[in-house]
Each structure stands twice: as C-alpha cells, then as structure tokens.
C-alpha cells in the first residue's frame, strides 16, 4: 500500500524506520532486485510475525500520535484485558497526556476546559462535551 507520502521531516523519519530491513535485503542480493525479500511497499502488520521485519512486541513508530498504551479499543498487547476498567477511568488521563490524541480533545491548545462540566467521566459521561476541530 503506497497511498501516503511524507511531507515533513518527522514523516520521513518514520518512513525511514520502516525501510532499513527492506533496503538491506535489496543490498544483500547486489541490488539485483528482491527475489525472496519482500517489497518495501508491502503492508507490514504492527504486531505478529508477518512481513519483512519481526519486531518484539508491537511496532510503534516515532511520535506521540502512535502511543497505544493503554489503548482505547485494544491495549498495547492487542487485547482488551489491559484497558482501564471501565475505560472511562482513563479518559481524562489520556486528555492531559498525549495518548490517543485523535479520540480525546487537545488540552493544551483547543479544549482546556473540557472537564468543566463533568469531572467524573464514569459517573457523568452524558455531560461530556463533543469537541469538533
């Protein structure tokens, strides 16, 4: 899958993290083209043993936006047992840190008062405001 192009330095860095194994494989066969080495454009699972690299544990690229610990739908090991019980217990902690920034509002720039109407997410979740960017 090759629908994404890096447009800034950080994105290029992330792309280069995923590239080295494929590039090494190509170099090992003298640049003659991969035969039994996977194409660098292959989709690589973030977990498991598929693909050209076999990371230990989930492959987490650089950057705060990719932090999955604890997760929202699944935890860092791919299951649900490690999620906060219930998940609302962790809602505000994710808000003040950089976990799951797409799912919770941005405390520092756009939604500093998100918790104003509802200080206990587990109890008053109906009062939690939806924030639209």
């Amino acid at each position, binding site marked *: 899958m090759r629908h994404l192009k890096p447009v800034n330095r950080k994105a290029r860095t992330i792309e280069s993290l995923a590239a080295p194994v494929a590039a090494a494989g190509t170099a090992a066969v003298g640049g003659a083209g991969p035969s039994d080495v996977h194409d660098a454009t292959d989709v690589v699972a973030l977990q498991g043993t598929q693909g050209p690299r076999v990371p230990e544990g989930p492959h987490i690229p650089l950057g705060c936006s990719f932090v999955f610990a604890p997760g929202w739908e699944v935890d860092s090991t791919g299951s649900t047992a490690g999620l906060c019980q219930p998940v*609302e217990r962790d809602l505000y902690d994710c808000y003040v840190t950089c976990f799951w920034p797409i799912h919770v509002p941005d405390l520092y720039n756009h939604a500093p008062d998100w918790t104003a109407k509802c200080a206990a997410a587990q109890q008053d979740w109906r009062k939690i405001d939806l924030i639209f960017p």
Partner: protein
Amino acid sequence: MSRCWKFGFTAALLVVLTARAGAQGPPATTGGNGTIYYGTYDKKILVIDEASMNVRDSMRVSVGIPIGLTLSADRKKMYAIEPAFEFVEVFDLATRKATGQFSLSNDSVRVRITNFNVDPRDRFAVLLVKTAQRKSDRWEIGKPTLLKYDLTTKAVTDTIKWPNGEEREFAQIIFSPDGALMYFFTAEDILIYDSATLKQVDRWDLQRSVDDGLGTLNFGFPESLYEEPGFYTGLFRSTDLINRRTLMGVARVDLTKRAVEFYSLGPSEPVGFALAPGRQRGYGLRQQVGNYQFWTFDLQGRRVGQRVEFEGRPRMGLTVSTNGRVLYIHTAGPTIDMFDAQTLQKIRTVEYRADMTDVIVVP
C-alpha cells in the same frame, strides 16, 4: 388485660433492643485521623477527613487541573502544578487558601517545569525546565536547564551547571533534612552540592557503600511520610552477573550518614512498595492483567509475608493509611477502595464526584 399486654409488649421490645445493641459488632475499620488531599479534574483539591472519608473542604486551583501535588517538608504547604507544567500554585494547608502562584513563562516563551524540588526550609526550589518558543512554522524547544528559584522573591537566582556538562531529560535531586546539602543522582554516583553556593562539595559512590561484588544496586530513594526525614526505605534490585539473575530486596538508606542497611528477599518480581507507619511492615502491588496481587513485607522479620490475589484493575496506586490498618487503592477514576491491611479483604469503595489526578495522605 390490655395493661398486661402493653407491659409485656414493652418488656419484649426492650429485650429485643438491648440484644441488638449488644450484638452490634466492633466499629468499622477506619484508616486513621489523617487528611487526604485529592487532586481532581474539576480544578480542585478535595480535603478529605480520613476517619470518615467524607469531603471536609476543597481548595480551588486557579492555574488549572492540579496534575501533580507536592507537600512541603514541614507539611504546612502544598504545591500544585497544572498540566502544561508552566504554573505552580501554592496553598496554605491550615487555612486551605491559595497564597500565590508562580511561573517562568512569558508572552513569547513558554517555560515548562518538568521537575520541581523544594528546599526543606521553603527558601527556594530547584527546577528542571525546558523552554518552548513558537516560531512562524515551528516550535523551538530549548535544552533542559537546572535553575534555582527563590520562592520569596519569585525570581530565578542561579543556573546550576549540569555535572560534567552532561544534560539530562530528568534529574533526581534530594535535599538533606536541614536544607544545607543537595544530592544530585547520576548513573554512576551521587553528587553532593552545597545548596547555598551550588558548588559540588563531595560525592558518594553508593555501590561501594553496599558491596563491590553485589552488582549494580538500583534504588530509587522513594520518599515516604512514614519515614524519618533523611531516610529512605524501599525495594532495590541488583543484577547478579555470575548467576545471571536479578534479585530484589529491601534497603533503608540514611542519606546524611551515607549508610545503607539492606537485605535480599529473592528473585526480582514486578511489584511496588509502600511503607506502613511504624516501619515494621510494607505493602506492595503486583499489577499484571489477570494476576493482581497484594504483597506484604515483614520488615522486622526481613521476609515477604503474604501474596494474595485480588480483583484489581489496570493503573492502581497504593497508599497505606495513617494508622496502618487500611490500604487505599486509588488512581484512574473517582474511587478509593479500602482494604483491610491484615486480611487484605475489601472493606468498601468510596466514590467521589471527580476523577483523581494525584493524592497525598498526610498523618
């Protein structure tokens, strides 16, 4: 006939009431007579009476959500820092009023305080800061810097040079009980500074104090309100290079005398440690999904006591009550679960109207 009936009924009622009074069990276990300061996402610090677990009062935090609470050494003040780490608000605990706030940020530069250590005499604080300056197309982040900040004049008085010029993202700094000395922890040793002149006056090689052949001693110098000032009790971990295993044990360090008492407990396991009042026992939490355990540490007998599984949840915190009879399980959510420290059985769950950010139990 009716009089007899009334007399008999009254007598029977008295008997029943007396029996019920006598059959009532002992009063419910309470945690002591301390005070629990509970930071909330509601921009308040709840003041909770430990005996009843009821909210006695609250302190409004004007700088924002009190993401971190720090108690002064004399236990008379509390410092609350907000999530952007720019503003710190100071509270007087006797009056429960805010007495002021400070920040190093200005319109063009944001200064984030990532570490905050207050002198035991409340004269100054050592801050680890990083600047963030917004440019037209980016943020420029400064290097981590150690500053000495005068709490009375609210001004930076000194910049503290990094040991050997090596900058760090984190810095652990502890003061001696009288505030005269400052201990700066590096990977190799502990550097001792004069807190007035900020000059290094000595160094302490902790490894050599323990045993050359023990392997690297990893000890975090955990602070506890149940310990004497200048003393630190907690778990240490040490890697045995010969047998290729990591051991854990309990250490008690006298920082000013540079003395270490320690003993091993066994193979290292992922468990925390919380000291109980009286320093005879400690408690720990093993937090593994599907395998949550309470551990008890018999500090007098120098051994692990019980290891009891219980129905836990991810992201728990443990604090021992001020009378040592109750264990508080908190963090992540609006509840404090109370467990009996002897039986490790749940007593009850107390629910508050706001999720917790930080908590301090003060005797």
